[in-house]
């Protein structure tokens, strides 16, 4: 009996971990917790509503994923979709980024193989949170690569709950961005790792990461421009090394070849203006390497200077001529409108109304920066300061990534998403470095006190610290106060993120919830009511005309053919619909008949006070329609330069088709009688109204 406690304590001792092991254990458990946190914080919408797909574009992705699961990959690749863009159709396999769908189906197949009887919808709903969790892991390793493991941990925590990222990755937002941010960060991380180590394996990995990114999202253009820019900066600052040469060349060549396998991207890497920077930098690298070699071979500096001049001049001349020839002959396409609108925020508004009409393409307001980043906005400059203080290849990269993406985030609301990982990483560096400095201060002082009291003599370092402490008597208290301040800020950040996620980003937008008169929750499920009605009670080949926002949802949930949808690839077609919606009924019916439309669907917010209805989007219909058909003039619909829908509305406005549809019983033009259309269905809260096109009268 007496030996028992002794042996037990021995056992306990043998289980006691070394400091290093303890640190590993803490790190791994923090990472696991962050991984879980990133997942569950995105589940608000599932708990509050249901496991469903949100918004507009995800419905298209869901539909294609369904098609992929049912018909297999080859059919998917060759899929010609008759149900959208009637009568043109859409070559789906060649006009989408398949990465998301393939990923979801792969997860689905694995789960099925492991005998988890899940539905593909659940996989689609949870893909974005799953990849968000993976992103936190990548953020940890990235932070570890550019600073230290502490910064990595902080970065993982920050990115796990950052609203800028959550906005696009809540459960149900089954969109390309969900996996693309993971791919983006992964590519950057592996590339930086490759630059740091010069290892061929890592640059190969970054090429594959790039391939995945290309297959998932059009935002890959950012990678293919940022990395060359980064290489260029390294070259200019004299940080050229063999490591950089290996990393960039391998990544560029392999990444380009792999990216060409995606049909939607095709030969753009050698043909489009947006990708030319990468190619230019690639050739520049070769010239640089060649010069380096010549310099090594030639001992004479004067000769080398002359050679340098000749080579650089001729290289630049050859490059310029090649580019000029390519542009003139049309082999290299000029920059697209979207690219221009990124560089010049006012471009889209003047030239491409369809891009400007999307709310997420608007320039970002300060409030939404604050909303999405919160304290990170203040920590970002501090992190930049720390990065500049300890410049290395890796920190230069993160600084460039942060600055460029911040600029783009300012141009377009949706690009806050791209900036988020950089902002989180740089802020993490700031937090980690500050907290580390403060704790070092606290600890060293404690040590001095300890050593002073117990052992009598301290090391030279601590004694010098002690001397320093005497010069700043309040340093310890200040450090404690600062630490508390930092923790207070971080906890505010956490509360803010949770609040934003729960209030702003977790509503599916297809189901509207409101508070009733007695505080109970009222659900407006009108969209699905209408789509399901279309699905069940219209002929299989019925053609539905609506504004393009609802195109994807009608095809996915209503399973009916639409005239235009969210793909917006044919501006003329959309303008035709816009013209039909904004003309007098007699004129509109001609267009409607020429498009072979059976049903017209409009969204009407008059009864429920739902604000984003078709009347709100009406000005864009006029603008887009007017862009192609000069018959439609914007001033016709305005009264003294103002947009009004009530009694004072412009006469042309009052008589146009959409007005009749959307404001059927509103003030301004009561008792509308429609000659060529009849009401086919109206949802219970009046939000969606569907009209049937009457067949033309018989002639006698």
């Amino acid at each position: 009996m007496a030996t028992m406690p002794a042996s037990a304590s021995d056992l306990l001792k043998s289980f006691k971990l070394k400091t290093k092991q303890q640190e590993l254990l803490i790190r791994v458990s923090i990472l696991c917790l962050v991984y879980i946190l990133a997942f569950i914080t995105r589940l608000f919408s599932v708990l509050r509503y249901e496991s469903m797909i949100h918004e507009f574009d995800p419905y298209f992705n869901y539909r294609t994923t369904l098609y992929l699961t049912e018909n297999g990959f080859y059919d998917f690749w060759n899929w010609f979709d008759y149900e959208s863009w009637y009568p043109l159709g859409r070559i789906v396999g060649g006009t989408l980024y398949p990465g998301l769908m393939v990923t979801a189906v792969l997860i689905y197949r694995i789960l099925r193989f492991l005998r988890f009887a899940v539905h593909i919808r659940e996989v689609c709903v949870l893909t974005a949170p799953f990849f968000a969790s993976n992103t936190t892991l990548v953020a940890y390793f990235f932070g570890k690569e550019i600073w230290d493991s502490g910064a990595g941990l902080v970065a993982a925590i920050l990115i796990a709950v950052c609203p800028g990222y959550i906005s696009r990755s809540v459960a149900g937002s089954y969109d390309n961005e969900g996996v693309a941010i993971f791919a983006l960060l992964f590519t950057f991380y592996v590339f930086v790792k490759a630059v740091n180590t010069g290892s061929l394996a890592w640059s190969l990995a970054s090429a594959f990461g790039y391939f995945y990114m290309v297959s998932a999202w059009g935002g890959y253009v950012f990678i293919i421009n940022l990395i060359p820019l980064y290489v260029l900066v390294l070259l200019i600052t004299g940080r050229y090394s063999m490591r950089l040469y290996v990393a960039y060349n391998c990544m560029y060549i392999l990444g380009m070849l792999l990216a060409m396998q995606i049909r939607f991207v095709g030969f753009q890497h050698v043909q489009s203006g947006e990708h030319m920077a990468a190619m230019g930098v690639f050739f520049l690298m070769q010239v640089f390497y060649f010069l380096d070699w010549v310099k090594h071979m030639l001992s004479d500096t004067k000769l080398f200077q002359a050679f340098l001049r000749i080579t650089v001049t001729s290289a630049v001349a050859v490059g310029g001529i090649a580019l000029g020839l390519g542009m003139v002959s049309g082999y290299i396409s000029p920059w697209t409108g979207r690219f221009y609108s990124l560089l010049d925020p006012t471009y889209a508004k003047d030239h491409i109304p369809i891009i400007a009409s999307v709310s997420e393409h608007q320039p970002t307001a300060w409030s939404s920066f604050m909303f999405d980043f919160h304290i990170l906005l203040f920590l970002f400059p501090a992190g930049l300061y720390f990065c500049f203080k300890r410049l290395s290849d890796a920190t230069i990269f993160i600084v460039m990534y942060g600055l460029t993406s911040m600029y783009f985030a300012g141009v377009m609301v949706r690009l806050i998403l791209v900036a988020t990982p950089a902002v989180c990483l740089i802020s993490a560096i700031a937090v980690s470095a500050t907290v580390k400095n403060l704790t070092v201060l606290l600890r060293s002082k404690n040590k001095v006190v300890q050593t002073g009291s117990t052992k009598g003599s301290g090391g030279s370092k601590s004694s010098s610290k002690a001397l320093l402490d005497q010069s700043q008597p309040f340093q310890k208290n200040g450090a404690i106060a600062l630490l508390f301040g930092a923790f207070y800020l971080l906890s505010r950040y956490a509360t803010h993120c949770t609040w934003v996620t729960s209030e702003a980003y977790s509503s599916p937008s297809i189901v509207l919830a409101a508070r009733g008169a007695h505080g109970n929750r009222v659900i407006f499920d009108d969209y699905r009511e209408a789509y399901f009605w279309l699905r069940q009670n219209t002929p299989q080949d019925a053609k539905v005309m609506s504004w393009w926002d609802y195109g994807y949802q009608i095809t996915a949930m209503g399973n009916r053919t639409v005239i235009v949808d969210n793909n917006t690839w044919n501006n003329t077609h959309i303008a035709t619909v816009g013209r039909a919606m904004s003309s007098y009924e007699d004129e509109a019916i001609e267009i409607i008949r020429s498009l072979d439309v059976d049903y017209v669907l409009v969204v009407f917010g008059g009864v429920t006070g739902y604000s984003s209805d078709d009347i709100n989007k009406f000005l864009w219909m006029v603008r887009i329609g007017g862009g192609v058909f000069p018959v439609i003039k914007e001033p016709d619909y305005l009264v003294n330069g103002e947009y009004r829908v009530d009694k004072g509305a412009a006469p042309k406005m009052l008589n146009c088709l959409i007005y009749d549809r959307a404001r059927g019983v509103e003030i301004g033009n009561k008792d509308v009688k429609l000659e060529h259309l009849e009401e086919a269905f109206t949802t219970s809260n009046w939000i969606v109204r569907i009209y049937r096109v009457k067949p033309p009268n018989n002639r006698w």
Partner: protein
Amino acid sequence: IDLSSHIVKVYLTLKVENAGSTPTSEVLLSFPPTQADHLATVEALVTKGKRKKTTLVRLDVKATELPDAPNDAKYFTIYLANPLKSGESTTIEVLYLLTHSQEPFPAEIAQSESQLVYYRDSALILSPYHIKQQTTFIKTPSTKVESFTRVEPSNRAGTEIKYGPYEDHPPYSFSPILIHFENNSPFAVVEELVREVEISHWGNLQVTEQYTLVHAGARHKGVFSRVDYQSRPTLNGASSLRYLLARLPPRVHSVYYRDEIGNISSSHLRTDSRKSELEIEPRYPLFGGWKATFVIGYGLPLQDFLFETSDDRRYLNFTFGCPLLETVVDKLTVKVVLPEGSKDPSAVVPFPVEQHLETKYSYLDVVGRTVVVMEKKNLVPAHNSHFQVYYTFKPIFMLAEPLMLASAFFLFFVACVAYLHIDLSIRK
């Protein structure tokens, strides 16, 4: 004949006399072929005891083929409990239900019109026997009767039309009648219903029901106006199907109601100790010819439905038919998913059904679960009787899946430990 809903209920009170010389225990019922196709059930009851102590005893009824049937008439034989001796008489109560027997006319109506239907029958029942006296009462849902065939003596009072009494008719006499009346009850028809009952020995019975519902009444024509529908609900869309009531077993939990595109929020569940009622509204009111598909699912405590027999077999005791009230089911498939590892399944159903076995893979299944599939056509709520599925099951199989999971996690951790302790680098 009760025509108040879209299911036609016919009550016959037969006073049968054995006019022959030999005692018989069989009574034949005959139906014209048009009715026989729509016939859902036939039940025969006999009253026993005297005066106040009367009890109803169910008699066996079987479909039979007779070689010399005129005009393809179909027959059912009622087997009496006690043979009827020559000259004796007895009273039999017969109840049969007809589906799809009311034909909407006009076949298409606008939203504000009410639904009018035709019902065709015979003033005299078709019988292989000589009929001494017969009276037919037809009950219509409202007093609005457009027209009815007059076969003297016949008259109409309120919601009742009376034919007869007719005296002394020879066998197989027939006198067609046609009644045109208003019936605004929604014609809720489930074209196809698949019920899946999954048994888990961890204590849950999961039921999933997939419905394809259609309004089989007069087709909707022209405009659907929500203004009129909401402001004057009694006048507009009187025959539209607004909601359905499903009667579920007590202690039901985790009820859901959804369709292909997501949850449908318009449903209410009321539970008490004896039954649960689920009131469901389709996404939109169903007018004639409109369709809706949806899924209802719920969980039930296993101990209410699973029992053990004396010879160590287990059996599930569950209702067969559709839980929705006042609906006709054209085709019903009941699937009972037995737990993995159960053997020798056999089903006992009180009426003839088609049966076969299937295999289903669910969570973490290796060999798959045996599924007993039963199919039946043309069902009415009267088919909501209990059926039993017997099978044998060893409780040790319950532990298979948890053990599998545990070993998978164990292997994962072992792999982690191994990875941390092995140095895989090439250079040293």
